[in-house]
């Protein structure tokens, strides 16, 4: 998959990022938690992170394909609600690792398993507090030329091989 996408919304403090802000490489993923391609990309990103360590900053932004994937939005809301309790990456990783089991009924169980305050979790979602951020991600994705998921600002596999060549 080739893209000539240009990130219109720079990475900021609002983003979910793993890795140092001054890392030489930043990978921004626009992802959908119910998308099988994103599910396949998940272990690849983990491998990249392991290989590159502090040379890579990985940023995840939401791009739920709500028409194609009926549970994508509820999963995105769960991750963003977890973020409000400081556990975004725990929920993000769980959602992808357990992707085959994703359905609305299982989400409270997953929230509990990572130690979230369930009442707050439920309220934050019900009151639409997390909806704004998800929509902002969606808008920035559209403007940046995301054409499907996973929408990467840099080619994942090309990046891997290029980095191997350059021994970054």
């Amino acid at each position, binding site marked *: *998959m*080739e*893209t000539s*996408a240009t990130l219109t919304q720079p990475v900021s403090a609002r983003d979910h990022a793993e890795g140092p802000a001054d890392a030489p490489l930043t990978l921004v993923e626009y992802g*959908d938690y119910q*998308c*099988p*391609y*994103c599910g396949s990309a998940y272990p690849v990103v983990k491998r990249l992170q392991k290989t590159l360590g502090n040379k890579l900053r990985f940023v995840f932004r939401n791009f739920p*394909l*709500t*028409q*194609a994937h009926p549970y994508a939005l509820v999963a995105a809301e769960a991750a963003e609600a977890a973020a409000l309790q400081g556990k975004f990456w725990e929920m993000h990783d769980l959602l992808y690792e357990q992707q085959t089991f994703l359905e609305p009924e299982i989400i409270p169980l997953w929230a509990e398993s990572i130690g979230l305050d369930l009442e707050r979790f439920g309220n934050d979602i019900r009151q639409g507090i997390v909806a704004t951020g998800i929509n902002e991600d969606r808008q920035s994705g*559209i*403007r*940046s*030329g*995301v*054409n*499907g*998921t996973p929408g990467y600002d840099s080619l994942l596999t090309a990046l891997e091989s290029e980095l191997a060549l350059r021994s970054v």
Partner: protein
Amino acid sequence: MGIGSIPHYRKEYQMTALQPGVQAPDFFLASTPDQKVSLSDFRGQPVVLVFYPADWSPVCSDQLALYNELMPEFSEFEAEIIGISVDGVWCHLAFSKDRKLHIPLLADFEPKGAVARQYGVYREKDGESERALFVIDAEGVIRWSHVSPVGINPGADGILKALEAMAKGEKPAGV
């Protein structure tokens, strides 16, 4: 006939597609087994024509799935978005149902590719249309067109930029 047989010269493809400033050719194509649609039905609102090679392409990177997702953004401009491929109506019906599409899909089926040819986006060698976008204004004039390599989903940002420019009252190119 040379252009059609040199697929890597994308620039030439871009030039055969109808350009901004040209009146968009009208058509009368089946959208369902018992309904036909004309471009002139939509006079008075912008229209986004999405020519694509075939139904049943890979899922998540599917261009139509993306536009289906972005219907709220398109409706802010009161733009109608329409897909066209050479597939027949029954194929479109099954594909649309499978992917939960809300976008009308037109069958450029008989004569095969006739409308794609009128728009300069028919791939003679493959018997399918190009992956091409046309943004047409309320008067039926093409305001933006883009041909994407068949394997690449062009996304929506070009379409939205064109719709925004039209909404701001920018003059069409070539006029």
